[in-house]
């Protein structure tokens, strides 16, 4: 199971990184969201995987590690705040600058061929 879990984390990371390297704001936001999933799963997995062991006293014999769970819980909420902030920043940037490129300006025609967006 751990192998599969690690593969998922690795793949999510790779997808997130690839999207983050795109030139437009929206894919970058998607990439960051994807990367947050991967990071949350990674931190969560540092408590090791446990089946049927929710850390509610009296419900199981072997409890899952509650500490990474508490950390990830706040990370999810803060991750939402960060994504929201980034999205709004992207909207504001587009409104102020007239395009949605991450550098705030479109690569000019001469550089178009060399420097992709």
């Amino acid at each position: 199971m751990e192998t599969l879990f690690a593969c998922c984390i690795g793949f999510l990371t790779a997808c997130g990184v690839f999207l983050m390297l795109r030139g437009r704001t929206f894919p970058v936001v998607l990439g960051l969201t994807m990367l947050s999933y991967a990071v949350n799963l990674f931190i969560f997995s540092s408590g090791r995987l446990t089946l049927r062991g929710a850390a509610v006293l009296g419900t199981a014999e072997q409890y899952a590690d509650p500490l990474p769970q508490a950390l990830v819980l706040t990370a999810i909420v803060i991750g939402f705040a960060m994504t929201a902030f980034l999205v709004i920043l992207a909207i504001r940037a587009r409104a102020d600058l007239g395009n949605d490129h991450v550098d705030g300006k479109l690569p000019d025609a001469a550089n178009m061929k060399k420097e992709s967006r």
Partner: protein
Amino acid sequence: MTLLWILLLPLLGALVPVITAKWNRSACALATAIPPAFALMLLLYHAETILAGESLRFFWQWVPLLGLDVVIRLDGLAFLFSLLILGIGLLIILYARYYLSERDSMPRFYAYLMLFMTAMLGIVLSGNLLQLWLFWELTSISSFLLISFWWHKAEARRGARMALTVTGAGGLALLAAFLLIGEVVGSYDLEVVLASTDIIQQHSWYPLLLVLFLLGCFTKSAQFPFHFWLPNAMAAPTPVSAYLHSATMVKAGIFLLARFYPALSGTELWFILVSLTGLATLLIGAYLALFKHDLKGLLAYSTISHLGLITLLFGMGSDLAAVAGVFHIINHATFKASLFMAAGIIDHESGSRDMRKLNGLWQFMPITATLAMVAAAAMAGVPLLNGFLSKEMFFAETLHQHLLGSLSWVIPVLATVAAVFSVAYSMRFIHDVFFNGQPKGLTKTPHEPPRYMRVPVEVLVALCILVGIFPGYIVGDLLHAASAAVLAGEVPQYSLSIWHGINLPLMMSVLALAGGTLIYVNRKHLFDFQNSLPDFDALNSFESSIKKFAASCNRLYDWLDNGSLQRYMTFLLFAFVVLAGMPLLSLDTLWGGRQELAVDAVNAAGAVMLLLAAFATVIWHRKRVVALLMISVVGLMVSIAFTRFSAPDLALTQLSVEVVTIILLMLALFFLPHKTPKQSEASRVVRDISIASMVGVIVGSLSYALMTRPFSTISDFFITNAKTGGGGTNVVNVILVDFRGFDTLGEITVLGIASLGIFKLLTRIPLFKPSSDGDGRPWAIERHSLLLSTVSQSLLPLAIMVSVYIFFRGHNLPGGGFIAGLVTAVAIILQYIAQGVDWVKARMNVEYQRVVAVGLLIALGTGVASWLFNRPFLTSWFDYFDIPLLGKIELASAIAFDLGVYVTVVGSTLLILASLGKMTTSHRPVHKDTI
């Protein structure tokens, strides 16, 4: 304590000229002279002790862990230098009073001068290496200010910059050397370092630290090949040249050689580096001095040459040579400072320093001429003057060294050659300026200077003569005490008498005098030869190389920082790959020995779904709505994974955050293009895929290695104490609101700040409102569907009830403030979507910023309340109550804290989404005053 005052008085003295700036010039100069005069008296008060061979020490602990203490240490060497600094400093103050014109800001000059004096005294009196270095840098900075005193002249600015660059760079090397010495010895205390000769010299770092140390000394003391800054520093006012560039600052490097002589000298490397540098400097300086037409230029090169001579003496490694070096420090300071001042007088009273114009000044200023001639004769090494004595000692030492093995005879020969040139340029100084016909093209008629301007010169020249005739009587004790400090032990027998009989050193002196005269007489041929050589301008080539260096730095910077986020990300991720990947390479196997769980069909199916959805998001990322749908599937799968692996709280949170995020991104797409144009060319895509897969592989491997390792956790503490200490059975929630409540408080604060930031960003946004979607289709005519509005309306009370339930059970079962807050927010958002902003606003007119603030205050208040019961911040309390109808109920202060979390989450989420949603309506947030 008196030792500290020797240092503090000149520092306070820097303020005196500023305070007395309004007084007349003489009064200002007099006031400025008082603090250093007192310092000199304090110094002389200790003279008896020091000359008896003892040393004094003042210690004040400062930062003991860094080895940084204030240590002032007065021994023979420090005493000698302090005497020079304060004594000549006082003469300079008097001299500058007459030298500076009405237009120059005299208070500014004096303030800089006193600052420099403090820094210089700091160097010689420091008993701690780091403290010494601090003052060392201060001399560079204050001398920069002094050289650039006439900052309106480009020449002064450039010269000052050059001096600062060279000596500053040397200072950095010196710092490195000191740090290395501190590492090797284990202390920065000077006395400990000086007593650790063997430890330092046998350490493998010795060559490195010696080279760094010498770089510091040689740059400061203008040794070849760093000598070029000194002639260019002559753009400074002449009092500065006389003080800094003959008597004090350039001697700081020499001082350091002498100071560390016991600890660092005595090795082969020291001999070679120090003596050969000194020899080269001695020769080059003496030769070039002859060809300078500028009076100060001649003196500058002559200074370089004499500094080389002293360096050579310290490099020879015999005790007698070191004594001769100390003696020449005294002598050079007296005759060179007086010569500079004489040159200043000539410049001041005749308007030129060019020896081609200045001729025959004898008839105009006979007294100054006499003084200058005596000093120049001392410089040339004429008998009965002080320069002769130390030069004799120098010659004698060159005959007794064995530096170059069988070729050692070359050194006395070269020393004689240098002395020949020294005589020649001294003769040129005397003959060209004071005799040799009539002045040519001077703008004013030369005359004698004001009476008191000549006093400093007279004092110093008198010293030259007195030392020259009665050496043992005048400087015997001082020289002995200083030499004892340099040698840190027995001072060898030496004789200071004028006449040693007819011997080889005397013959060398005679030869030098004769040869010098011969060269001076035939100088025309030598000048022609020198003129035929290509001209080398040190200043310009220095500046152009600095410019080239700066330009290449700029190119590197532009390459790194070209304004492209994608490029920065690439660098960052590449660094991650290297830094995180390297340790993995040295790992034999990823598997850490922990038994894996079995894969069941549900998990496998979930994983496949997750992978497919993630892949689909990437593939279709240009079709933004589709990508959004796909990523929501990923989020769903993640929350299911949390459920499977025993984290119900996480699953609930992830699920509700997922809903909110998707709504947010949907709204955002209203304002952003719906499609991403195809742009990246194939090579870029290949590059990005390879970086992404490398990062993915590393993170995946790390994760696998982590998960398969056996582990011990601190969570047992939480599990044991959750019920007894926190009063709840849901350990995750108890951790959030109780054990780690302070973290949670910080986190909801971040949430609140982010939402306020968003609110601010959306205020007065110059937005364009599309009337159709990306493909040109108009938006739906029916703004709010009847079905949705009816359902959502009836759903609201239900949803609120659910969230209340989730909230209250949170302490014991999965749930809690975070999740309840998100559920409430989603329910309210649904009303916005179904009914529109106007409808909601009419029924629930709340400013969400206030809600955020209230939530934070509740959480904070719960924490502060513990103080009322004399408990630490955020201590929780709980008890059980029997309430009629409801039965036994547990009330915990953690519930109140969780309420704060709940309110903050509701407020922030609504503030974010509602603000963005309102953008599509007439209720967009604007500044009130702009309406």
